[in-house]
């Protein structure tokens, strides 16, 4: 520790030191003035040591000590205490004293695939393409924060999620101080946005970094809902990973001239040294396990892939800045809303390749990834289609059926008959969970059907504790004013006055999961969708009577319950929320189903907070 602080004192001009007292801890402030004031006068400090290294350290920076003129020179103690070896070790640390590893990030179109780290000193922030400070970084980007950065958004430290910050450059700065890599002119304007995910950094370093940034940038704000940024990050990374792999494969194939088997192709890749591939390797995440199955593409698609090249990393869209700020309209917006150009339906990526029902991402879809743009059905399908639940947990994947987002549209507009054939190739009741993404009135929300097999079992008498006869006056009636198409009354949990007095939800009790089918809706605007509940319930029973030849009266109803989920703070992110909800729910479906079921009262969030507060007050009194 001592070696470090002393070394810092050597290099830091006293001006900065006096401004930043926390920089080296308390002992630097004790020793530094003594030494620096000596340093100008006492040329003899290094000679005490007879060590070349020391001469180097003190040589470059002769602090002009205006502030410490009056201080009586004190002969510093430090050289005596140090071994020569230790000093040698200090030298490389001088350059990048403080750093944070970067988990993921984008500078404009350029993806900072790991390993990357950032370091900060004086007023510069530097990004290096190594895991930790090391002189051999291939790519280094220096940002002069005070002059270049217009806006800074960051997350408050929290050890439960990844830390993200966003920097927005002043528009004119792009050309001069911008990163030193090739970009096509039409995307170069996007590199003014730098988004970095730091993963889970150590608290002290992270806070030190934020404290260092704060005085340098005037316009700054705190990112409230980190997971939305993370979701967008993931979506982008998925697009870019898949696309990179497709392109890599095509480069290989062009090298061999023909389509080859997988093994040959990989071998070829290692031999391939043409610069195109080399260029791609810079962009490619080292994680090869992400490789999707890639098949032959025809030459027409080939050209489009190459064109896509510069846009590949889809960075402008990585801008959580826009995700977070409904009010800040970004110039890209106009581009996003402009009429699709002639080849906007040109296919850019097929995922997963070679399968029936694969998603085709087109140029038009890429526009939907821009800031403040709405996600469309293709991106939603792509988004949840490649979430971890298909890769990591095949057992779970078998238990899940994912309907296309058009399913509900068709069921709603037409009838059961129009979607009857959609389940002709498998038995829906063998699945445990059914995902139904719903798009209504320009809004995405999610319905999840749990345990549909219970529809086939005869109706049980409702447990008396949680169900009250429907004749009880309740807010249910107001909710079901929506011209329900069916004549059966909707089944909603009705809360008895006695239950209302309880704490809104208690997860302490083991929730009793009754053997029933459930329909949950998860809506990031906090709306309830009883109509969707009814439609899906009817669908399940019709499906059962058609496919299982069971009489309708012998079937059990599914219970509808709206789930409380985080609300979107703006008007454009519901697609991202939907993806996040799918991913979260299916990280542990049983647990989340129980959480939804164990909540007794479907209060709105604000209502719940008020109740909790009043409950606490009562408790205090």
């Amino acid at each position: 520790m001592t070696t470090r602080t002393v070394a810092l004192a050597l290099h830091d001009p006293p001006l900065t030191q006096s401004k930043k007292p926390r920089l080296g801890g308390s002992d630097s402030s004790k020793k530094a003035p003594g030494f620096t004031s000596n340093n100008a006068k006492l040329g003899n400090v290094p000679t005490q040591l007879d060590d070349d290294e020391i001469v180097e350290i003190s040589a470059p920076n002769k602090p002009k000590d205006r502030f410490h003129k009056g201080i009586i020179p004190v002969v510093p103690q430090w050289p005596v205490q140090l071994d020569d070896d230790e000093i040698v070790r200090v030298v490389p640390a001088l350059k990048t004293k403080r750093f944070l590893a970067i988990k993921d990030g984008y500078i404009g179109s350029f993806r900072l695939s790991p390993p990357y780290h950032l370091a900060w000193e004086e007023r510069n922030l530097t990004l290096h393409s190594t895991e930790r400070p090391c002189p051999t970084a291939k790519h280094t980007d220096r940002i002069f924060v005070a002059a270049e950065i217009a806006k800074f958004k960051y997350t408050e430290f929290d050890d439960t999620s990844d830390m993200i910050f966003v920097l927005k450059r002043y528009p004119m700065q792009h050309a001069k101080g911008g990163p030193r890599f090739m970009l096509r002119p039409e995307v170069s304007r996007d590199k003014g946005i730098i988004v970095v995910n730091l993963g889970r950094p150590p608290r002290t370093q992270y806070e030190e970094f934020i404290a260092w940034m704060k005085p340098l940038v005037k316009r700054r704000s705190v990112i409230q809902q980190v997971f939305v940024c993370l979701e967008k990050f993931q979506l982008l990374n998925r697009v870019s990973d898949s696309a990179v792999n497709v392109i890599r494969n095509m480069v290989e194939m062009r090298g061999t001239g023909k389509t080859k088997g997988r093994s040959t192709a990989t071998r070829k890749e290692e031999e391939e040294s043409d610069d195109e591939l080399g260029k791609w390797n810079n962009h490619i995440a080292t994680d090869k396990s992400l490789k999707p199955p890639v098949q032959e593409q025809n030459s027409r698609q080939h050209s489009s892939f190459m064109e896509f090249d510069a846009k590949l990393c889809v960075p402008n869209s990585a801008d959580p800045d826009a995700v977070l700020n409904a009010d800040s309209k970004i110039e890209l917006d106009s581009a996003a809303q402009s009429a699709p150009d002639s080849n906007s339906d040109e296919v850019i990526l097929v995922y997963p390749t070679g399968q029936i029902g694969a998603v085709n991402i087109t140029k038009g879809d890429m526009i939907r990834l821009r800031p403040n743009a709405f996600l469309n059905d293709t991106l939603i399908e792509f988004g949840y289609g490649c979430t971890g639940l298909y890769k990591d947990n095949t057992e779970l994947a078998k238990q899940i059926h994912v309907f296309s987002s058009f399913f509900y549209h068709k069921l709603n507009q037409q009838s059961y008959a129009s979607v009857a054939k959609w389940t002709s190739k498998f038995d829906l009741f063998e699945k445990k969970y059914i995902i139904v993404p719903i798009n209504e009135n320009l809004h995405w929300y999610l319905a999840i059907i749990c345990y549909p097999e219970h529809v086939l079992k005869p109706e049980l008498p409702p447990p008396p504790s949680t169900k009250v006869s429907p004749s009880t006056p309740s807010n249910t009636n107001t909710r079901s004013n929506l011209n329900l198409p069916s004549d059966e009354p909707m089944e909603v949990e009705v809360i008895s006055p006695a239950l209302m007095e309880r704490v809104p939800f208690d997860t302490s009790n083991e929730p009793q999961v009754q053997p029933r089918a459930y329909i949950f809706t998860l809506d990031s605007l906090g709306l309830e969708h009883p109509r969707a509940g009814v439609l899906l319930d009817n669908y399940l029973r019709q499906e059962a009577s058609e496919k299982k030849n069971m009489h309708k009266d012998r079937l059990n109803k599914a219970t509808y319950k709206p789930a409380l989920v985080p609300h979107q703070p703006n008007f454009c992110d519901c697609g991202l929320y939907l993806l996040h909800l799918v991913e979260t729910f299916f990280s542990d479906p049983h647990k989340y189903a129980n959480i939804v079921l164990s909540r007794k009262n479907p209060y709105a969030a604000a209502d719940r907070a008020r109740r909790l507060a009043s409950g606490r007050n009562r408790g205090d009194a």
Partner: protein
Amino acid sequence: MSQEPEDVKPKINLKVVYDGEEVQIKVKPNTKFAKIFAAAEQRFGKESGTFKFVYEGKRIGKEDTPGDLDIEDGDQIDCFLEQLGGWQ
């Protein structure tokens, strides 16, 4: 020459349905869907690329053929407009 074996295969009728309206299209099993899409969009008076086509819940790619998807005579293909979602 190469046309001969194709002609032997029977043509199939596809019902293309958009918003309750139905259009019949007669195709060979190895016709690429790109062609079918163009025909359907023209019939419904839409620009090309407007629709998403779905067969039994699965998306149809332009390069697929009815044969790839095991589509039989009289099967229905659904068209949808792009769904967008952000707010209400």
